[in-house]
């Protein structure tokens, strides 16, 4: 706690930042876990479940630290299961429905291509607790992006049908990518304190990664810079409510139950 008071950032901004990291991992992890038992082949089913589990594991670390920083005695479980939709801080991109297998992988890739450089930067955070979590997560996410990029290329540069589906997924998801690089007062505070990179600083690297993979996948980058936004400040699509209804049911119906 002493270390916290020494950092040059207010508690609310750091809490906000940690919720954003944790909620991205939690909501995407939950979405990907919906594939369990439904993927087109057994091997991909297992791979998707592994990705989901990695993300849920990261959630525990981010939200655990968020609760610690907040100082109100809330645990990672409290934050995951007892907040309402408007208190969630994830990107809209990660709460969008899975669609088909290709769309799930396209969403994963667009997120992974941001997540990896974000974690790499966080591994050098001025806050050692943040750096420690990032160093652990970065190894998992390096594999996530390797896998999702490979599958985007294979499906994009695959059959006529798989190509059409991937292009449609890209067109649909593209306007949700801009939110990753938006900035508010909390972002500026944690960036100024050297805790996290400024969101906009990750844009160029993300664009390069995405452009290279899309070119190899023979997919066309959509035109237009319109960006849906709101998730990072608690204004979500209708989809998040349904996710929480399923995810939080047990703790809401049987408060405090454990197993």
């Amino acid at each position, binding site marked *: 706690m002493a270390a916290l008071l020494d950092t040059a950032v207010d508690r609310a901004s750091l809490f906000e930042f940690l919720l954003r990291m944790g909620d991205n991992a939690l909501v995407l992890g939950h979405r990907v876990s919906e594939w369990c038992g439904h993927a*087109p*082949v*057994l*091997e991909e089913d*297992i*791979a998707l479940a*592994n990705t989901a589990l990695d993300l849920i594991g990261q959630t525990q670390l981010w939200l655990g630290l968020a609760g610690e920083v907040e100082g109100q005695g809330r645990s990672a479980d409290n934050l995951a299961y007892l907040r309402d939709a408007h208190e969630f801080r994830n990107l809209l991109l990660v709460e969008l429905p899975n669609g088909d297998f290709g769309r799930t992988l396209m969403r994963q890739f667009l997120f992974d291509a941001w997540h990896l450089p974000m974690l790499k930067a966080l591994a050098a955070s001025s806050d050692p607790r943040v750096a420690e979590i990032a160093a652990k997560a970065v190894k998992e996410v390096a*594999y996530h992006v390797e*896998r999702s990029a*490979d599958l985007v290329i294979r499906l994009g540069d695959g059959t006529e049908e798989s190509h059409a589906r991937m292009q449609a997924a890209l067109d649909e998801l593209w306007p949700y990518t801009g939110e990753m690089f938006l900035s508010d007062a909390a972002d500026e505070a944690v960036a100024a304190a050297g805790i996290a990179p400024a969101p906009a600083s990750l844009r160029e690297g993300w664009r390069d990664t995405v452009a290279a993979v899309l070119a190899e996948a023979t997919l066309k980058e959509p035109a237009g810079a319109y960006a849906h936004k709101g998730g990072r400040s608690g204004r979500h699509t209708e989809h998040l409510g349904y996710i929480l209804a399923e995810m939080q049911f047990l703790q809401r119906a049987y408060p405090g139950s454990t197993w």
Partner: protein
Amino acid sequence: MSHEWPLWEVFIRGQHGLNHRHVGSLHAPDAEMAIRHARDVYTRRNEGVSIWVVRSSDIAASSPSDKGPLFEPANSKIYRHPTFFKIPDEAGHM
């Protein structure tokens, strides 16, 4: 769709210095994805340092009906097993 993908046998080296061991099989369209799948299916619990995959159809196997001629002649030759040596205590476990 999985029936269209060929079957691969997966071998994992558990530690440096040990041999690769057969751990199972899986379906994949090519070697690169077979290794990826093997990573996801067989090495989630820190089992390995190296993965080999080989197309199952590339493995030549002895026929079960050859079991007799191949293996039975060794049955009655227990002297081929090095079980008659006394290992000195100082040598320890071998």
